[in-house]
């Protein structure tokens, strides 16, 4: 029998004179390679931080593959990342071990039928799988223990299944949910369904728009409060946009979207734009047009007007094959890997369907095809062509240009201690950065495509997966879009609890970013202190919802169940207990003189630059734009509580960090006020009775009724857009429903990090090389969120 790659490690361990010594040493010195592949990295960070302290087991996180002997594959491996995983594995010296953590690493988890997912076990030999979505730090430590036992030659950890004969089920009550999905065959897809709303300013605005855009538009409709749709022709698109930009003060793009309507042989292209002026702030103008669905659809790009549309246009070029004339990035793929299917978001690319019952002889899934460059396990070395295949794209033109200008190019990531899950191509002259070119998409898990193929309620867990360090706010945006469409009023108590949880989530995300920032600065104490505080937040989350990072607790109409007084009491105590630890953290890290000298006047974005790049959230506020969705378009109970939005005007790294610190303190204040209010409130329903229908008894606790209530949710026809202030900025969900199917026709998710990417590039231009990491970390960039 030929030796597999997996056996080779064990053979190396068990051969030679020094076998016992060798096994003992390897066992206690498993250094995991710092290879972040997906969102489970959040929990890995917790395992390394002071709450769990992985170093107890001699497991020291090492940044460099050559010196490590252990990979923890953190969740999803996309097609783009698969290549990187193989390279990293090849770079490591023998003997080496691989643990795959998270459900995605086994069969894709929640993304099992995505077009961009591979199985890590197809790419590298895996020693142990640790399930969970995400895994808990305890599970991760157990995984390390399992590998240690394997090295010793023992195996107590693997679960062995027994085959048992189960009697056929009786009755209907315990069946798996069987709500069938209804796809309307030829739906009427419209984004400008008029709606009667009480919005005086809107009527004036429409009059104004009609006067300004005379002859350029086809129709102007009020689709909802604060939402106006402007239909135009492809020829007039640029002219319309220019008019809006020049006369109305529209200065940024919130979202770019393409909707594929194959049965009408057209694409709808829409730009959601807005302006940061006092009255225009909450308003979103949707400029849309229709283009034919021929072989190479084309439309003029609006990048020259609004820089912020740039990356979204490039992304949509990948997804739909729609060419945006005038955008320079239309040559190759941006988000997707070379071997990902072309134009996967078109309607005629079908994903594998979900099966609720398993039939004899039918394989459970065949959706995941291995990437084509997996080398045969029998041969230890590569042929030349295989090696070529394994290499990542090298940006030949950048290299050539750099050589001409006497510059140096470094490829940073995706396996790099300071890159996160994406690749940066950095052109530098001496110690000065000339340009940083991003290569995102290493965690692109096709959230938008999957969302089109699942029930509305099934998308709730999906929408929080992009950002498990800030899950509640991600959920809240999606759920609010649905509630808005259905016109549901959420019970008061649920609103308060949602606010509490959203703010806790914001605090958690702040401490996540403020833990990664010290790491990038080489300051591990700051990381530990920060994650210690985050552990307190997660503790509260567990007590409220039962999950550390992925609660899926917010559902259309309210929350899953009421939270107990005990937990509320704890939350109240937390708001005062946090200050003591925060003080220590501030003293050691935030007010550290070395750090302040590193951040001051570094990565400056002026107000105009910030708006032009389209950055959002606290980072935009740090540059002096007073835009906070919670103030501009209040949702939940933010308008009833006493708090202030923070703004600064420095626009440098220090301003961004201090702004977020101040915002976090405001969040603690909000939580305190909200908890006080809830404690005085009578207990009652937390789910709106309008959505419960016949199941009124579920209003305090949805358990047992979820699919009965939400299984056949259908949204009214039209486009429903919600804007939410997540921890790192504005998250925008735009759901397009055809009014017939019980799955969304299209879901567009614009996450704050995706918008901030442009800001990082601009801010780091002309700075010193080491400053890139200051800028990068000051933006709190979280790649899974950006790539979706």
């Amino acid at each position: 029998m030929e030796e597999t790659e997996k056996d080779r490690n064990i053979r190396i361990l068990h051969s030679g004179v020094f076998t016992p010594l060798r096994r003992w040493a390897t066992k206690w010195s498993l250094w995991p390679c710092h290879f972040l592949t997906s969102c489970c990295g959040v929990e890995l960070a917790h395992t390394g931080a002071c709450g769990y302290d992985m170093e107890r087991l001699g497991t020291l996180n090492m940044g460099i593959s050559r010196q490590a002997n252990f990979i923890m594959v953190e969740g999803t491996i996309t097609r783009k990342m698969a290549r990187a995983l193989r390279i990293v594995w090849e770079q490591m010296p023998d003997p080496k071990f691989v643990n795959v953590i998270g459900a995605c690493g086994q069969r894709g988890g929640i993304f099992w039928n995505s077009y961009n997912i591979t199985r890590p076990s197809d790419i590298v030999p895996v020693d142990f799988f640790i399930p969970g979505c995400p895994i808990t730090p305890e599970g991760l430590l157990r995984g390390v223990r399992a590998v240690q036992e394997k090295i010793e030659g023992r195996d107590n950890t693997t679960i062995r299944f027994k085959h048992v004969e189960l009697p056929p089920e009786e009755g209907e009550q315990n069946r798996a949910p069987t709500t069938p999905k209804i796809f309307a065959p030829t739906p009427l897809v419209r984004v400008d369904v008029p709606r009667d709303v009480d919005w005086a300013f809107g009527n004036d605005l429409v009059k104004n728009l009609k006067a300004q855009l005379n002859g350029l538009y086809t129709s102007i409709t009020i689709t909802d409060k604060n939402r106006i749709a402007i239909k135009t022709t492809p020829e007039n698109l640029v002219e319309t946009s220019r008019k809006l930009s020049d006369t109305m003060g529209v200065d940024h793009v919130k979202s770019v979207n393409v909707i594929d309507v194959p049965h009408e042989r057209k694409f709808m292209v829409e730009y959601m734009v807005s302006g940061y002026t006092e009255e225009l702030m909450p308003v979103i103008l949707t400029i849309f047009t229709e283009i034919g669905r021929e072989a190479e659809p084309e439309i003029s790009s609006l990048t020259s007007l609004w820089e912020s549309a740039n990356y979204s246009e490039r992304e949509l070029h990948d997804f739909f094959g729609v060419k945006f004339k005038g955008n320079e990035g239309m040559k190759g793929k941006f988000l997707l890997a070379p071997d990902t299917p072309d134009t996967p978001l078109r309607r005629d690319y079908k994903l594998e369907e979900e099966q609720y019952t398993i039939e004899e002889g039918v394989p459970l899934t065949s959706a995941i095809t291995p990437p084509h460059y997996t080398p045969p396990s029998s041969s230890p070395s590569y042929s030349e062509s295989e090696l070529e295949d394994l290499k990542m794209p090298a940006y030949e033109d950048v290299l050539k240009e750099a050589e001409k200008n006497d510059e140096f190019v470094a490829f940073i990531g995706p396996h790099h201690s300071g890159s996160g899950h994406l690749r940066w191509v950095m052109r530098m002259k001496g110690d000065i950065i000339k340009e940083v070119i991003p290569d995102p998409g290493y965690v692109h898990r096709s959230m938008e495509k999957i969302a089109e193929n699942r029930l509305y309620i099934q998308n709730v867990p999906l929408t929080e997966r992009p950002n498990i360090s800030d899950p509640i706010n991600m959920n809240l945006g999606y759920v609010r879009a649905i509630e808005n469409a259905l016109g549901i009023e959420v019970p008061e108590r649920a609103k308060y609890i949602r606010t509490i949880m959203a703010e806790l989530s914001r605090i958690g995300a702040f401490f996540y970013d403020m833990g990664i920032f010290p790491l990038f600065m080489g300051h591990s104490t700051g990381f530990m202190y920060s994650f210690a505080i985050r552990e307190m937040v997660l503790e509260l989350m567990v007590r409220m919802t039962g999950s550390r990072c992925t609660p899926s607790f917010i559902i259309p109409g309210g929350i899953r169940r009421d939270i107990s007084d005990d937990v509320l009491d704890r939350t109240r105590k937390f708001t005062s207990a946090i200050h003591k630890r925060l003080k220590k953290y501030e003293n050691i890290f935030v007010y550290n003189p070395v750090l302040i000298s590193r951040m001051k006047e570094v990565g400056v974005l002026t107000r105009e630059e910030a708006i032009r790049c389209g950055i959002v959230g606290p980072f935009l506020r740090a540059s002096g734009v007073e835009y906070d969705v919670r103030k501009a378009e209040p949702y939940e109970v933010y308008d009833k509580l006493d708090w202030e939005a923070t703004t600064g005007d420095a626009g440098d790294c220090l301003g961004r960090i201090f702004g977020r610190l101040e915002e976090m303190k405001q969040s603690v204040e909000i939580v305190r006020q909200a908890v006080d209010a809830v404690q005085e409130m009578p207990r009652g329903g937390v789910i709106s009775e309008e959505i419960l229908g016949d199941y009124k008894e579920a209003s305090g606790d949805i358990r047992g009724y979820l699919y009965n209530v939400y299984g056949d949710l259908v949204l009214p026809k039209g486009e429903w857009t919600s804007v939410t202030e997540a921890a790192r900025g504005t998250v925008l969900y735009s759901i397009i429903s055809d009014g017939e199917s019980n799955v969304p026709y299209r879901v567009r998710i614009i996450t704050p990090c995706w918008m901030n990417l442009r800001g990082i590039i601009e801010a780091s231009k002309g700075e010193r090389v080491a400053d890139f990491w200051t800028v990068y970390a000051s933006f709190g960039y979280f790649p899974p969120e950006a790539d979706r």
Partner: protein
Amino acid sequence: MMEMIDTLMETVMSNQVSIPLIEPMLDVLPEIPMLQYMVAFMLWKPLFAILICPGLTVGGLTLLFFPWIERKLCGRAQWRVGPHEIVWWLGGVIQLLADTLRFLFQEVIVHKDAHRPYFLQFPFLSFTIFLLPLLFIPAGTIVAIQTPYAIQIILALVCLFPLFILGLGWASNSRFAYIGTVREAFMYFAYEIPFIIAAIAMIILYGTSDPLLMASRQSIPGIILNPVAALVFFIGAAMATGRMPFEIADSDQELCAGPHVEYSGIAFGLIYVLCYEKAYILSALMTILFLGGGSGPVIAGLGDLSGVLWFVVKTYLVLTTLFMLRAVYPRYRLDQGLKLGWSPMLCLALIGLAISLVVVAVRVI
């Protein structure tokens, strides 16, 4: 033949480490044939210095256990435990032994683009050469080679360190190693001049560069006589060893450990301890120059070992301070590090020199 042995024994016996505590044992020894000579050789001061302290034994133990102390202390500062499970009843003290053995048994990868001979030579070569300054460092009164120019020789050898790092980086032929190497070269020039000036200030202050005489002339420790030079020397040592605010050349998050990004197995293991070796030597030097070397209250019964003990304690104190910087500071940027080296530190070093001259002048008057 016998005469030769006698002459040799005379030389050896005339320069013995005297330890009153074990003298009764030594009196018994002449009855056992060969052991007498062996013990005599072991206690011969130059050999004792090379083999025991500050040489191989103490040096080796430092390399093996000091990283553990560092990890444990940092762990305490960071609200956690640090290495623990390996021998839980000793707090994981042999963690570094496991790491070292693991590196020893692991594959050494030489990648295609590397300059193979240099790539493999440099780690071993540098490790050996970095041990040389230990020959001139006295522990108490025990020193391997006693010369009036010891400090100058140690400084010259210490200045060799960065050259080997440059060699490592060059042989690696990797982009990150290249940037890291260039940064190392820049930093080298930034700290070396103030560092040497600070040492020279102390030589002027004591009027000698013989470490043994230096220790005897520090009735008031050098750090009190010239605190400015001590500060410069300490910061210089932190820069030279790449400690935290100045971990610029091999910054893990920016350059993936810079010059040694491509090393694996035992080659990396040697480079990993290189910085500890360097820190040990510089701490010993700091002990001699500023903390009075092995001088301290004589512990009855230990004799010469008393000085050795004080020397080791002081060196470890400096070493711990140096390494605990990691728990407190993030790292500087390259230009900030250079600026610090070339302006404030150079000025301070010159002020230190002036202070020394004043002190000497006052003494003369």
